[in-house]
């Protein structure tokens, strides 16, 4: 479920971030949960999973560009898994065993991919073939602009042609060379196969044909499937959605977000479901979910808000085990380098370095997140992807908390430092020892920090930042706002366009950016990245990111990572983990997959204690 994160699921993950990252000041300790539960594995049983917040509203695995509901992936992932399965146990790696491909070979300077599909079958017994891939390609080729998962320049527009030499082989001829890791991890992992033999039609009663092979036909089929995909009342009954290649089939769906999976008896993959049913039950708020957990009734697996960590012993008494799931992503404060007031100041790297030196991330992890957070040493989480962490990040990043270094930097650049007051620029100018370009004499070192309101941990975190920055005379004015207000009023600000109406924000902390399996900075830190709304722009950064996407050097990633960590396009913050609770006689849940999280119940089973 990784592209989930970057694309459709971005909103959901942010919602999860806000819901789950609620604060805690307690010191209760939580284990990572058992990997096995003693006892005899049982077949059958029902698991009820609590889902807080929004609910799925679309079942066709390619939602339109206007539907950003990330919970849709929760509904569809078990039915139509991706070609490339992200995460293996607790590791952030590709899981070839669960993936739909048998082999992936890159050739012709990594511009041609030969993919052999496993000899698996759809739930109606029809084999999965390369025709199913061309069906996906044909539909997306003519409709990619109406697909929420489309990323500028990538699949399907980067495909010159698709050749299918036989029923199980697909050859993708790409328009350029790619880094194989990037393309496998971040592009093919977004593609779910569709059953051409069942879905290539333009009406429910119409016959299946090869409509996708023409532009008009592909548009008609795509429109038909998208229309059907939005009719919530027929999700569980529409024959289209009963043809699946994943381990589960949809048995029930209520428009309020309650739905149930039952095993796909014809699933060809390695991990056949042992449970007889998995129910996803919606909760309006985490308060409601917590009350239900405490009453020890109907939930077998649910989220534990961080501000309720102190109640773990009560939940354990109710028969639950508590586990921690590190979140694949990066948390940050985004500086607006093109704010009309202090954008010029923020464009000076040393100012961003001062700000970062004054964030005591270690204490925030300890005090605000009770130890359950990634320290945020740079652009890549140290918790979820050890293999992606450069030595620099592993060592704590380039800017560990150091008020003395911050003060020294300020003094060396012409500032009058007033601890617990407001620093002012004493030596305006661009020479060595001056404040730097765009900073005027007497200008105060102060910023407004807008952050998502209503989340206790965010309040505590930003109050801590305000306090630690003040120690070196950096004045932070806190401005909590509802998440949607932040989103709707924040515009892209860069050198070319930074209207006051949407670029008046200065610093912003809205949550975190979810990551894909390959935590590339593409889209976040490159000049025209869709997530680069603070206007950071560096030719070297662009080159380094390009090298991770298009080059072949395995060293490229660390080069990108270290440079980005040092350049501070974002101010790095700790990223809170998710905490889950589950019934103690439920096994196979841990180690948590950082990408699919709780979406792989085919691995779960009940045990008979003491047997």
């Amino acid at each position, binding site marked *: 479920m990784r592209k989930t994160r970057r694309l459709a699921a971005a909103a959901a993950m942010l919602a999860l971030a806000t819901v789950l990252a609620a604060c805690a000041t307690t010191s209760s300790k939580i284990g990572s949960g058992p990997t096995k539960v003693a006892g005899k594995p049982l077949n059958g049983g029902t698991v009820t999973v609590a889902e807080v917040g929004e609910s799925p509203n679309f079942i066709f695995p390619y939602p339109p560009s206007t539907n950003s509901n990330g919970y849709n992936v929760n509904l569809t992932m078990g039915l139509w898994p991706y070609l490339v399965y992200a995460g293996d146990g607790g590791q952030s790696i590709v899981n070839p065993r669960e993936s739909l491909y048998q082999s992936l070979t890159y050739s012709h300077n990594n511009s041609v991919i030969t993919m052999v599909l496993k000899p698996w079958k759809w739930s109606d017994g029809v084999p999965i073939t390369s025709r199913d891939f061309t069906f996906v390609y044909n539909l997306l080729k003519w409709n990619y602009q109406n697909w929420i998962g489309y990323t500028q320049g990538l699949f399907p527009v980067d495909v010159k042609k698709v050749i299918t030499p036989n029923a199980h082989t697909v050859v993708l001829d790409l328009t350029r060379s790619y880094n194989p890791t990037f393309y496998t991890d971040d592009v093919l992992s977004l593609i779910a196969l569709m059953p051409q033999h069942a879905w290539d039609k333009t009406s429910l009663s119409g016959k299946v044909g090869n409509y996708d092979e023409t532009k008009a036909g592909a548009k008609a089929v795509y429109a038909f499937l998208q229309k059907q995909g939005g009719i919530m009342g027929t999700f569980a009954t529409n024959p289209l959605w009963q043809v699946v290649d994943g381990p589960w089939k949809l048995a029930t769906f*209520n428009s309020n977000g309650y739905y149930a999976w039952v095993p796909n008896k014809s699933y060809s993959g390695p991990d056949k479901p042992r449970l007889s049913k998995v129910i996803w039950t919606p909760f*309006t708020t985490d308060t*409601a979910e917590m009350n239900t957990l405490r009453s020890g009734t109907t939930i077998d697996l649910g989220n534990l808000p961080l501000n309720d960590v102190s109640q773990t012993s009560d939940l354990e008494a109710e028969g639950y085990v508590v586990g921690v799931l590190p979140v694949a992503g990066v948390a940050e404060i985004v500086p607006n380098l093109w704010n009309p007031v202090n954008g010029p100041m923020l464009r000076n790297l040393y100012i961003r370095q001062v700000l970062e030196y004054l964030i005591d991330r270690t204490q925030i992890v300890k005090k605000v997140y009770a130890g359950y957070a990634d320290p945020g040493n740079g652009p890549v989480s140290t918790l979820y992807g050890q293999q992606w962490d450069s030595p620099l990040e592993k060592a704590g990043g380039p800017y560990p908390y150091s008020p003395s270094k911050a003060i020294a930097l300020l003094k060396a650049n012409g500032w009058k430092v007033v601890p617990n007051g407001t620093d002012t620029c004493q030596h305006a100018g661009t020479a060595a020892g001056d404040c730097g370009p765009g900073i005027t004499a007497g200008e105060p070192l102060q910023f407004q920090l807008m952050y998502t309101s209503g989340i206790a941990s965010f309040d505590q975190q930003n109050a801590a930042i305000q306090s630690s920055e003040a120690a070196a005379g950096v004045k932070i004015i806190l401005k909590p706002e509802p998440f949607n207000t932040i989103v709707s009023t924040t515009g892209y600000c860069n050198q070319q366009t930074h209207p006051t109406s949407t670029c008046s924000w200065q610093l912003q902390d809205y949550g975190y950016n979810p990551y894909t399996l390959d935590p590339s900075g593409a889209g976040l830190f490159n000049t025209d990245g869709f997530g680069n709304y603070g206007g950071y722009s560096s030719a070297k950064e662009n080159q380094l990111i390009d090298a991770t996407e298009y080059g072949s050097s395995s060293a490229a990633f660390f080069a990108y990572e270290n440079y980005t960590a040092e350049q501070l396009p974002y101010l790095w913050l700790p990223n809170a983990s998710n905490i889950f609770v589950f019934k103690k006689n439920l096994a196979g849940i841990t180690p948590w997959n950082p990408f699919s999280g709780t979406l792989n119940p085919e691995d779960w089973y009940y045990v008979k204690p003491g047997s």
Partner: protein
Amino acid sequence: MTWYLVRRLAQAIAVVFGVMVLTFILLHMEPGSVARAVLGLKATPARVAIFDHLYGLNKPLYDQFGVYMWQLLHGNFGISYQYQQPVSTLIAQRLPRDALLLGLSTVVALVIGVPTGIYQAVHHNELVDDAVAGTWFTLYSAPDFLEAFLLIALLCVEFHIFQPTFPGGISSVVGVLTDWRALVLPVFVLSINSVANFSQYSRSTAITVLASDYVKVARAKGLPRQLVLTRHVLRNSLLPVITILGLSLPGIVAGAVIAESIFNYPGMGLLFWQSALAHDYPVMLGGTLVIGIATVTGNLLADVVYGVLDPRIRYVSQ
């Protein structure tokens, strides 16, 4: 009477239309981009443009209003930006559930409040009057979320008597009724906040009625006390209650955000709240329309019922 009703109906339509115009303008004056609120911070300009085009947000405001009113006249409330579902479907799912929950709690409050109000009036200025009034005002002034949490902690977590939340699988009104263990607490919490209203209005009216000549005459004629209370005092004490009931109708359809949040009861209140945060104009407008209609209907019903309960009140053509 007929002419009076026609006139009130015409006024009601004008009022609702005015509310719609005002709401439409106010919503569109909100700062920020709808598309970005729905699609998220990383929505590309191209995606924002598609969104604006799809929902007509790139048209002038008067055009958008015209399109909206035209849709409305054809029974189309529009599509929710956030939920990607017809607004009429969203309202149809939630309104009956709220009507049940809030309607039940209003009935419970009424059944408790009016008799105790009359009882207090009969025992006017006695210790029992102060004790009952004190109890109702204490419950009235306590926040409903506090009452909800205390009751959940005691009756659900500690003693496992009731369910703290509604199961997510219930989507119909019938389903809600069959799971009565989940219904008890929200109905109770919502009603105990309203009892004070009903009891105190009934009490003050009943005190006046009890002192009136016709009650004194009835009692002097030897009518049993119970008969006097039920036939003369109760009926006349209901007039202010009718006003409160009429005014509570919009509240019943508008939902109760806090109770819905705590008891996992997705209704109109949460729908409006989440839609307001997400700039989901069609849902906000649809909800405003429903609440506007409920408001004028409630007022109209109250006026009509006045005439039924009190024969001295009659509406004549002017």
